[in-house]
């Protein structure tokens, strides 16, 4: 493999594959952009915060306490990260199991987004664990099989590997390793099927974590239906994230796609918008059934009830209707805006479950509000995630077919 030997005429392996065909100096220069300036500021604040957390512990760096053991590192980084990374599994099953070939070009970006989403959710979670260096314990040291969290830990780890397998063909195309690529292409179907099982279970399990806390979670959010709600909203999350992500990356990385046909993306976006609408309607009715099943109508006319109504009407029912309207009138722009609204809605839902409606019985002064370092760490992890995504997109054939290889059959 390559070394950094300087060659003015022909780029070395490293220059070709890592520095985008430039010399190291040119590559560094090409990185001086306004975007990277913002990133540099975030990292300059964020990395010391991460070190501070690791050296001084959770006490000084968070607002967590004995009554509020979980904050935004669980509620946002983990719950939202994993829900919004469901695109890989949704698009994977659409393409590989249902044979929707039209969506095949979304598979690689969705898998990559999914893989990175999970990876960085786990990285963020690590900072939340009191003894983060023991993170392999549930796998190798002691099995707490009665815990929903045990299921989550295993399934997230396994699913991460599944997505890695699905992503591998792109890596080996980048590295020009034909044999390895062929093996992993053959493994894609198996990984997709296994991934569907794992996703169904751990997406719903993330909600089932709260099944143990009927006395702490507000009745409007606590229900036996939590697993179903979390799964359904994750499916929608995967769809709307794919809409947002494909629109963004086809704009940002447009140069990479030779035969870029915006009409094709629009057509596919309309299809996804339809799926999102159906998913949101289904979710809305599941929520209503949960409300009726728990006889919780009385809570609707309380402050928490208003919050609940904002969530299920403002972020579920209205987007569902507008998605439908946009699909019928082929308003791709409206579909994309509604996708963003739905992403916000899913974040709102997960925060309601884990923070806002959690410990609702406590007096206001004992409630949790994130410490600034918790926010900075979260922003830093998300930023590093975006950087990684960008780094990979610039190098690997994610948005386009590698010219040296036969396209993957779907």
């Amino acid at each position, binding site marked *: 493999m390559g070394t950094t030997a300087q060659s003015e005429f022909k780029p070395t392996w490293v220059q070709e594959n890592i520095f985008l065909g430039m010399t190291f100096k040119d590559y560094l220069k090409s990185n001086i952009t306004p975007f990277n300036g913002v990133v540099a500021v975030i990292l300059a604040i964020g990395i010391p915060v991460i070190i501070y957390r690791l*050296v001084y512990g959770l006490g000084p760096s968070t607002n967590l306490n004995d009554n509020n053991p979980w904050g935004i590192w669980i509620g946002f980084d983990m719950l939202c990260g994993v829900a919004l990374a469901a695109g890989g599994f949704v698009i994977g099953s659409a393409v590989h199991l249902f044979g929707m070939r039209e969506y095949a070009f979304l598979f690689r970006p969705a898998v990559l987004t999914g893989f990175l989403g999970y990876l960085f959710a786990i990285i963020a979670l690590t900072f939340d664990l*009191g003894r983060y260096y023991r993170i392999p314990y549930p796998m190798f040291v002691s099995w707490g099989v009665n815990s929903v969290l045990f299921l989550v830990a295993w399934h997230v780890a396994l699913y991460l590997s599944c997505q890695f397998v699905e992503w591998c063909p792109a890596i080996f195309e980048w590295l020009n390793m034909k044999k390895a690529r062929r093996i992993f292409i053959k493994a894609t*179907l198996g990984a997709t099927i296994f991934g*569907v099982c794992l996703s169904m279970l751990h997406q719903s399990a993330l909600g089932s974590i709260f099944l143990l806390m009927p006395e*702490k979670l507000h009745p409007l959010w606590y229900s036996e239906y939590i697993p179903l709600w979390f799964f359904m909203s994750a499916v929608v999350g995967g769809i709307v994230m794919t809409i947002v992500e494909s629109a963004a990356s086809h704009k940002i990385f447009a140069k990479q796609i030779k035969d870029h046909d915006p009409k094709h993306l629009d057509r596919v976006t309309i299809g996804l918008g339809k799926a999102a609408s159906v998913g949101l309607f289904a979710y809305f009715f599941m929520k209503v059934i949960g409300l009726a099943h728990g006889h919780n109508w009385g809570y609707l006319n309380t402050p928490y009830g208003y919050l609940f109504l904002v969530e299920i009407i403002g972020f579920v029912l209205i987007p569902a209707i507008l998605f439908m309207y946009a699909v019928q009138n082929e308003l791709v722009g409206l579909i994309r805006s509604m996708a963003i609204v739905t992403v916000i809605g899913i974040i709102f839902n997960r925060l309601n479950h884990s923070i806002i409606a959690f410990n609702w019985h406590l007096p206001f002064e004992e409630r949790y509000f994130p410490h600034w370092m918790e926010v900075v760490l979260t922003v830093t992890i998300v930023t590093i995630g975006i950087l990684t995504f960008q780094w990979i997109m610039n190098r690997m054939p994610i948005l386009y077919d590698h010219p040296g290889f036969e396209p993957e059959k779907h």
Partner: protein
Amino acid sequence: MDANRRTFLKTLASVGITTSLFGARSAGADITSLPGYPNQYGVLVDTTVCIGCRRCEWACKEWNKLPNQLSLSEYEKDKAVFDKIRRTNENTYTVVNRFENPLDKSKPIYVKKQCMHCIEPGCASSCFVKAFTKRPEGAVTYDASLCVGCRYCMAACPFDIPAYQYYDPWTPEVTKCTFCFDRIVKEGGVPACVSICPVETMTFGKRSDLVELAHKKIVDNPGRYVNHIYGEKEVGGVSWMYLSAVPFDRIGFRTDLGTTAIPSLSKPFLSLVSPVFIVIPALAMGLYSFKHRRDVLEQQACKQALEHKEGK
């Protein structure tokens, strides 16, 4: 249990999984309705007796070698701590709180708080490394050598008992009352708090005997107690039970916890795991075969059409 099963079935049905799997699940779930270890110990706390001397707090710290220990006389002197309701924390496994007595304002009610040692502990079912164990003696013990520090146990505890050493950056532990496990496993051993109590607020013994004793006390002393033993049935029953002269919600107890054991709340979901791994791959492979067959047929049709054209 039945309500659980019903909702489980509904959930399952709406996920669209075939009815044939129901039987397999039901058998496992009934484990939760077992009464627990038959000979487990318990403590009956009679809140009508407690004088709020806080010696139990002192003895607890002494025996468990907890930080910030004061001399016994200082515990008895310091009445200012009662001004606010306290909870257990990383340095304190048990606290005594003072509540106003609605029957007689001159006689406040003191209530000791510590781990209730549930028959089916929520903390134990939440822990993904099995750091908590319900011992046959009744104690719920914690093994710090396994703990990863996820703090799910704290979230899952209906009594808000486990605390965390947030300010220890390297080896933080969850802390909670041990029921003086090291003392009660020995013949004649009694928890430190129970043995120091000067007025016998607490009675240590076999839990089943204590339930009987508590009922007898209520019957034998008409008007002294409300007719409820807190902890007899709450969250499936706990080892530490309380008697009170006033309704329990007046003295800091949550009376909305229900009688379902916390672990049984997640069991229906956990039992879905194996069905999903059986049904989904089968369904997925089925879907894939349809798709594959369709592709093959399409290709054949295409080929035939081409041949047909060339043949002409």
